[in-house]
């Protein structure tokens, strides 16, 4: 490491000896690359944002304007659309949103905590069978959810649990990838010395986790809970399969149900668009506000 420190930190500042090749990008070339790089980035950002902008504009239109007018102009039916959305079928959309909040909220907090405990134990404890148990967690990460959804449905059906909130809630509490993340966070945020000190002071393993470990792992917990919240909110196949009762649907399944009726009745299109608009606004706000956490989660998941 010392060799690196001794070298000048910036070669741009170092004088270029005569006869040495000059750095290429200078003057006009540099201006060109500034325009090129940022232009391409703007293009990428436009591709990502335009469909969302379309949705914002579409939410302000009635069915007629949706199929005729310019896509990127405001209509005058935003409030009417919202009113229609909230009143349709006795306000069932609010019920669907509340269900989404329930499934994603409980799944994120309870499931996140369960994963945090397991990841903490894998990082900080030494016990027999640790390697095979952790290998099982990794296999769980690598098996796609949808491959186990139908087996899960078959089992739940034989236990008489389908069409209950438990059929959607219980599976979301188990997330192997969160255990993996929790182990990474525990290794990164929590020095074993701190826990050792707690132990010397006479705290048992549960107390030292709750009073010493947990407060230091809060950023990791928020990150894990955020990812679980979004994952569960976005989940479609599991609730679609488990639930028949409309009252129990989360918003994704409810909106898809409405979409399947658009062909018979085009009026449903405005409901689908208004509902889509309302159900992404909280998520977009959450992502903008919690940037620090999802960045941490993504980097922990890729490079250790």
């Amino acid at each position: 490491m010392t060799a690196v420190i001794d070298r000048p930190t910036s070669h741009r500042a170092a004088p270029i000896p005569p006869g040495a090749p000059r750095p290429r990008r200078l003057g006009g070339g540099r201006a060109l690359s500034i325009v090129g790089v940022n232009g391409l980035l703007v293009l990428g950002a436009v591709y990502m944002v335009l469909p969302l902008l379309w949705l914002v504009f579409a939410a302000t239109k009635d069915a007629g304007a949706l199929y005729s007018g310019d896509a990127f102009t405001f209509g005058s039916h935003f409030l009417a659309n919202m009113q229609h959305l909230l009143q349709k079928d006795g306000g069932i959309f609010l019920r669907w949103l509340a269900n989404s909040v329930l499934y994603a909220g409980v799944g994120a907090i309870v499931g996140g905590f369960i994963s945090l405990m397991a990841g903490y134990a894998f990082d900080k404890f030494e016990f027999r069978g640790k390697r095979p148990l952790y290998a099982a967690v990794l296999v769980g990460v690598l098996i796609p959810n949808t491959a186990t959804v139908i087996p899960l449905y078959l089992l739940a059906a034989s236990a008489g649990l389908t069409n209950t909130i438990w059929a959607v809630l219980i599976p979301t509490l188990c997330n192997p990838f969160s255990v993996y993340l929790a182990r990474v966070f525990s290794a990164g945020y929590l020095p074993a010395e701190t826990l050792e000190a707690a132990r010397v002071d006479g705290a048992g393993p549960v107390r030292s986790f709750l009073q010493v470990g947990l407060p230091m792992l809060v950023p990791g917990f928020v990150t894990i809970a955020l990812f679980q919240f979004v994952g569960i909110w976005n989940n479609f196949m599991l609730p679609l399969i488990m639930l028949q009762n409309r009252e129990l649907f989360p918003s994704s399944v409810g909106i898809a149900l409405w979409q399947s009726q658009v062909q018979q009745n085009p009026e449903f299109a405005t409901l689908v668009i208004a509902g889509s608009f309302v159900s992404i606004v909280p998520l977009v706000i959450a992502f903008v506000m919690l940037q620090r956490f999802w960045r941490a989660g993504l980097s922990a998941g890729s490079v250790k």
Partner: protein
Amino acid sequence: MTTPAFAKRRALRKTIPGTGGRAASVFLIPFFVLFAVTMIAPVIYAVSLSLFAEKRSGLGFGGATIEFVGLGNYVQVLSDRTFTDGFGRLAVYCILYVPALLAVALVLALLLDATVAYAKRAFQLLLFLPHAVPGVIAALVWAYLYTPGVSPIVKALESGGIAIDFLSAQLVLPSMVNIAVWEWAGYNVIILFTALQALPREILEAARVDGAGEIRTALSIKTPLVWPAIGVALLFTVIGSLQLFTEPKILSSATTAVTSTWVPNMWAYDAAFTRNDLPQAAAASIILALLAGLMSWVVTRFTSKELTR
């Protein structure tokens, strides 16, 4: 550059002394109970269910009996044209989607990492936004953006003299790839950008001193160095593509080009809920899970050991 002896001491200090299996079990039991109930038990149940079939005698009178048929359901599922066609579509989807996604994500990440890029944080947020959109809604919005009469894209192309039906039988698969790229590119941009930012600056400066331009550095130095991160992204992309269900399910209400058995997951769904053939649905799910395990193994074997380390 720590010495081996120091590294070993660090490794020992990592865990807390005096904490054995009993303490660990308090922390591990909740997760592993759930793991057993929601992942292991369903798979075991599905395997056992898939080995039996409902047989009706003669003309269907006298009720049905459950018979052990061994691998009969698997043979039937694998010899069903609609199922194998679905796998063919899934394979084409993977071949289009995986390189497209990784290329888009890598190019955007390298652009973000370029020294001349402005407003990096704002760009990261904008590129990541689609990931905040639920898959159902992403598919719905794009379904409208593909529908003639509603879509500004179709209108713009028409005014330029190009008539394209994004929902036709030939184009619906690439259209679906576009939806998935839109949803997942930003996520992978952040992963790759984080890896790029973690590269040792002295290597990049050495390249600059040697006269390498930005593009040359990006392609010959940065890209090979972030290969482990690309490997992880590749792994999750492959697993994700096998899950394909939401997008075709939503598009099937917008176009007749997407049938109810379009991909293996939809085939299994159709078997369970339309044809009421639970054993075949179970067999199809097990085939899919086995394939996922196999592909994960292949990808981790040949790209990186980051995750399994």
